[in-house]
């Protein structure tokens, strides 16, 4: 069993589930921080992250999602490797140049790679178990 634990970051007394993940395409690994969002079906990264890991992001499968504001967000799915501590995942994540949120996002597609994900408010940490 693998257990991956991250501490929340804090902003004006609020706990924020923002965590570092390794991401790799054709180019070597890079570590980026992403917001863990149980309300997002897909993980989404800015197009500049795709360029950094050597992905021609617009060649991926085109997708559209509705954001919290009701706006449509166009993104493209591309296969990547993700690393969360010692756990390595392979999955398709979205890339877009239309992200109008302040974060890259880890969504339910990442959650599905684990048996359990716990947002532990009391201990101010996130735990992923598989």
């Amino acid at each position: 069993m693998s257990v991956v634990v991250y501490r929340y970051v804090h902003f004006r007394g609020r706990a924020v589930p923002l965590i570092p993940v390794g991401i790799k395409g054709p180019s070597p690994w890079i570590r980026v921080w992403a917001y863990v969002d149980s309300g997002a079906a897909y993980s989404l990264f800015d197009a500049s992250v795709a360029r950094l890991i050597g992905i021609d992001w617009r060649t991926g499968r085109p997708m559209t999602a509705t954001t919290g504001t009701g706006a449509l967000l166009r993104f493209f799915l591309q296969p990547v490797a993700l690393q969360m501590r010692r756990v390595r995942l392979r999955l398709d994540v979205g890339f877009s140049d239309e992200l109008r949120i302040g974060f890259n996002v880890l969504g339910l597609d990442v959650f599905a790679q684990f048996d359990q994900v716990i947002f532990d408010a009391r201990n101010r940490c996130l735990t992923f178990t598989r």
Partner: protein
Amino acid sequence: MTRDETWITEHFQALVECYGGKYIGIANRQVVAVGDGADEVAEKVRDRVERKHLHIMKVPTEQEMSCLL
């Protein structure tokens, strides 16, 4: 957690206040580059910081932080 992760966790609020809306690169517990994209940040420190030691963060603005549900 690595020392850089701990530093980022402890300084996140200050990072939002100083660099909201930008991408930043962090290594050795300091901000080493600021830019408008992850690729730009990595390029700025390519000769100074090993890629495996670099943390890249898209920093939300204060408004984006206050709009989080």
